[in-house]
């Protein structure tokens, strides 16, 4: 008789042996560089206790993975980009171009092709740092107020769960080898219900986690001296590699298809159990349309998306900032929201949406501004 007294034994038996070998391998390869990075940074013990863990969607480390050379298309990269003057102020305002991508062209394919034409008419520019200002809406929970080395051992910690949401703005400057982030700007906390808020208040308003640490209400600036990448799953491109991406749909398709075929963990890369190539492309679009890709690449990406099956269109979506755009869905409930006037990506929404509605709640990312600048800390 097959009797089970403790299911934890089954879980233990499922532990892959590869975890230990991969961890050991990673430790041996990374130890020297990691400690060297710390040594180069020097040591200034944190005095404010702020938790500086910021895991932005594009922050990755200088470990070579896919490169255009690896996919054999470096020679296919276009000639030198014509460098225009940096924008004097803000990047091109949303909706500031002659409207061409009318959502009355009801098919997703039609809208995407029109967006390609609009995008292709944008001014090409370049600079040292790609700047992005974005606002995210995430779930959060009460943080621990606990003891640490040096604190009184009598001080005890406590945790509470609440249905809290945290919205904050982030700015980032990303160069080829340097970057700066400012996180936790304009933080706002809300609760799923009045009852949840009452529980939090009754508990003494314990500090809620933010991008800058528990209960931190001020922005935190972090500087990095490493290479950051844009990408999905194993496919990770440096700023220079993003700039070299092809400007035709056919060649861009070849690049992404090669990365897709080489991706060892497609489900993990896209976040779906059985993702399609279309969904993989939409994930890339979320990275590149608000990224430092050339105008031609963005236009080509729109044309490539227009050719894909399984994409749906949802009209008249308004974001929390009051901007209205067209939703392009990947068939699994995630949406890019695109301004039809400029073909700029203005939002990413990780939940289903309804036409003629306002998108809100956990899983919304608003892209407020982006562009090139030559100075860290200075917006375009």
């Amino acid at each position: 008789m097959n009797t089970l007294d403790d299911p934890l034994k089954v879980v233990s038996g499922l532990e892959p042996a590869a975890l230990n070998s991969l961890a050991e391998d990673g430790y041996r390869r990374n130890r020297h560089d990691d400690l060297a990075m710390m040594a180069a940074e020097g040591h200034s013990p944190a005095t404010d206790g702020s938790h500086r863990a910021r895991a932005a969607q594009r922050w990755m480390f200088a470990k070579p993975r896919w490169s255009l050379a690896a996919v054999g298309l470096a020679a296919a990269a276009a000639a030198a980009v014509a460098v225009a003057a940096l924008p004097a102020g803000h990047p091109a305002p949303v909706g500031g171009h002659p409207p061409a991508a009318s959502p009355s062209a009801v098919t997703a394919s039609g809208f995407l092709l029109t967006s390609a034409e609009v995008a292709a008419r944008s001014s090409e520019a370049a600079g040292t740092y790609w700047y992005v200002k974005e606002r995210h809406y995430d779930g959060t929970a009460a943080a621990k107020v606990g003891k640490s080395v040096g604190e009184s051992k009598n001080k005890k910690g406590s945790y509470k769960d609440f249905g809290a949401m945290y919205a904050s703005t982030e700015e980032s400057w990303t160069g080829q080898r340097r970057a700066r982030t400012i996180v936790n700007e304009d933080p706002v906390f809300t609760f799923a219900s009045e009852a949840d808020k009452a529980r939090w208040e009754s508990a003494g308003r314990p500090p809620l986690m933010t991008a800058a640490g528990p209960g931190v209400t001020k922005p935190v600036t972090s500087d990095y001296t490493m290479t950051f990448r844009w990408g999905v799953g194993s496919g990770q491109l440096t700023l220079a590699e993003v700039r070299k991406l092809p400007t035709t749909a056919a060649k861009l398709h070849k690049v992404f298809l090669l990365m897709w075929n080489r991706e060892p963990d497609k489900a993990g890369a896209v976040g779906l159990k059985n993702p399609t190539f279309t969904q993989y492309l939409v994930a890339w679009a979320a990275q590149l349309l608000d990224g430092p890709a050339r105008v031609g690449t963005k236009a080509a990406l729109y044309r490539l998306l227009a050719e894909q099956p399984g994409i749906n269109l949802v009209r008249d979506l308004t974001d929390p900032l009051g901007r209205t755009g067209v939703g392009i869905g990947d068939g699994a409930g995630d949406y890019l929201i695109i301004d039809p006037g400029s073909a700029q990506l203005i939002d990413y929404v990780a939940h289903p949406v309804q036409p003629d509605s306002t998108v809100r709640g956990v899983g919304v990312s608003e892209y407020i501004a982006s562009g090139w600048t030559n100075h860290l800390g200075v917006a375009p």
Partner: protein
Amino acid sequence: MDDPLERFAGVYDTYYRNVLRYALQHAEQGTAEDVASETFLIAWRRFPAIPEPPLPWLLGVARNMLRKQAGAVQRRRALTDRIAALTARADGFVVDAGDFVVERAAALDALASLSEHDVEALTLVTWHGLNPAQAAEVVGCSVRAFTVRLSRARQRLTKALQSADHDPAQGRAAPFRSPSPSTMGK
């Protein structure tokens, strides 16, 4: 030992593999290594003001980073797909849990039928060797809440395994349910 980096290297040497093992459970190798390295860089910036023992705090930092990394496309993670991807033929066809023997595929199916929170609770106390208090710190809930979560996860897994045992022809389980905002950890 007065040099802070030398002292911190001891923390790194002791816990890096633990953090990387945790990250590998949730992300492909390159991303997992980046998360592990960034976790220790953050710890270095706070050192020596990191909690003692540091492992639950380190895993909590990595967990937060992994959730935000997933937030790039703001999706739920197929945790058992990662486990399946890491499982090699050498891991065996059968899981032997004392008097209970089950095919690895059936056991994975049973695990896949649970919520992401359930799987996380079960793997934190088994694969990562944390006690309930430490695991509660990682996920950002009270010890009592975690103990209840673990107990329910064990019950649900037991039911799923026994159901599979009685009906080996049972099809693949339903996919994960995303955690609700009210239960999302730090």
